[in-house]
């Protein structure tokens, strides 16, 4: 798999909260390049800046200094609406608490991402959703509401929602934190499969050692700074 195209990048990025009175440096001079096909884990203790990096890569936050590039576009030059469009078209999100819409079924939750994007017709939406449900082994559960699904099933739906739009980048914040060991492994396996088979680029923030070990690239973060950025070999599941 070639990993030469840059999907996203942080360049000399700083993020300081409460500048002035009691500044908190969440991200300090971070330079990070996310390449197509990366399966990258951001690891570090709580408060180290992992989530800030994810938020900046996800166009949910903007650095106080420095730049964020998504598909070579400098996000600091974009309006809020354009940032929304980048998120809806190019970035998939997987959350620790799954964050599915409770009044929508599993299938509708997956479709929802395409409907927000707005440029895919109903027929193709249905087709893609059915294929995604099948791939996630949820094809018999598409009609169920999130409350009728287990944690692992909900996270699979969340993965489906993130991937249905074929994003350039999937950001996952502690995707296995609320799952038991067996389910975590299953979720990691699914993401890894998607990465290898479809070339989806994943970036996770995680405390999960198992997930860290299975990441192809491990970036250690501490006090808002990148301590190490290593490519791991022999990480097959």
């Amino acid at each position, binding site marked *: 798999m070639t990993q030469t195209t840059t999907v996203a990048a942080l360049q000399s990025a700083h993020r300081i909260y409460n500048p002035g009175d009691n500044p908190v440096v969440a991200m300090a001079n971070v330079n990070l390049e996310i390449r197509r096909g990366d399966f990258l884990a951001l690891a570090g203790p709580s408060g180290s800046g992992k989530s800030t990096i994810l938020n900046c890569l996800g166009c*949910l936050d903007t650095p106080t200094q420095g730049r964020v590039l998504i598909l070579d576009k400098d996000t600091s030059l974009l309006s809020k609406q354009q940032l*929304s469009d980048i998120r*809806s078209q190019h970035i998939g*999100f997987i959350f620790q*608490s799954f964050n599915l819409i409770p*009044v*929508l079924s599993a299938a509708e939750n997956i479709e929802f*991402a395409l409907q*927000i994007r707005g440029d895919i017709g109903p027929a193709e939406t249905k087709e893609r959703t059915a294929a995604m449900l099948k791939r996630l082994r949820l094809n018999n559960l598409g009609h169920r509401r999130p409350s009728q699904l287990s944690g692992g099933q909900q996270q699979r739906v969340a993965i489906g929602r993130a991937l249905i739009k074929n994003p350039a980048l999937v950001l996952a914040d502690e995707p296995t934190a609320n799952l038991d060991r067996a389910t975590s492994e299953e979720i990691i396996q699914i993401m890894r499969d998607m990465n290898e088979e479809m070339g989806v680029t994943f970036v996770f923030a995680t405390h999960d050692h198992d997930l860290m070990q299975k990441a192809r690239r491990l970036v250690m973060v501490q006090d808002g700074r990148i301590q190490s950025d290593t490519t791991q070999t022999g990480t097959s599941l």
Partner: protein
Amino acid sequence: MIVRLALRNALRNRRRSLFTLLSLLIGVGLLVISQSFVDGIERTLVANEIDSEHSHVRIVPQGYLEEEDYYPIDRPLPNAAQIATFVMERFPGAFALSRMGFRAEVGDGQKTLRVRGMTANITEYAKMFRVGDLADIGNGQRCFVGSGIAGAFGWTKGDTLEIQTKTIHGTLNSAKSIQIVELLRSSHPLVDDFTVLLPNDVGQTLLDSPEGRATEVLVRLPNPDDAEQVAALVQNTFPGVVAQTWRQKTQYLIDINNLRRGAFQIIVMIILLISAAGVANTTLMSAFERTTEIGTMLALGMRRGTVVWLLVTETLMIALVGSAVGAGLGSVVSGWFTTVGIEFPEIPVEAGAAIPMPPLLYFAWRPEITIFAVGLGVTVAFIAALWPALRSSRVDPITALRGEA
């Protein structure tokens, strides 16, 4: 998707949605009922004024209206017969009646009462006005007496009365043993409580008046909207006369009714404001409980405008159902009272002056009232929901996703 999502969200907290729905239902329902009620009063008052006293156009000599309270018989309408013929010829289906009003006193030999005397052709009068059963025009010395006057004296059909007035020459004249043929009943105080109607043959003798002399010509039209045209044409054709349309005559009733309408509208507005507060609270609470969900949608790339639209649509769905059901129920109630009427307390003459209010009031429901009420309910809900929706859409997705908003 937005509509489906909004519908499901609206059904999420059913009790709260029901409360909002009911508040709008009540407000909008009351709006339809009160509007139909007030319109009914207006229509009834105007119709009664036309049917009992004024008709569609009233033509009098210039200056007569200023002295009308004294019924000046020394100011006859010039060319009354020609005016009547002119109108009936120019406006097919129109009907014109000449009459002469005068001041008089009636009595039973013991007490007297000041009244308005009126002479006219009784057959034509019966054709022009609905003031009781005037089919039997009688013969000899006879009259028709307002039911209120009859009540004051304890008179009934067949009784006799005395009447005294001034002739057109200014001399006093009286007639005794005038037999009451029928009582005038119209719900118009001027007719019921103040009018004694004499057939022309009796009245002209009493007033020593030549045949054809009249102080006013009244015109009834097949199309009441032609009244202004008739009035203008008559005034242009016959100098020295004034033509008063039913709209001009009933303007005071409409003005009084507009005060009533205003009072009702204030009450309904207060109810709708309470509903609006409920709507705003529902939207705010609904959004507040779903902060993380809204944060998720924003993170997934939903635009803030779409979030606003989603929240407003939820409220609009509830508002549409509440307003439609409220307006529907209000229309059914109004429609019922349009048919069967509602008893209305009699307005004392002293309190109501000459307000022609019948004892049974019919509502006037129109489809426009229902459509307006639904529109108003939905608009109020939209305005009430907009600020909470805008506020909720401004949530920072990062904070919302942390569940800290």
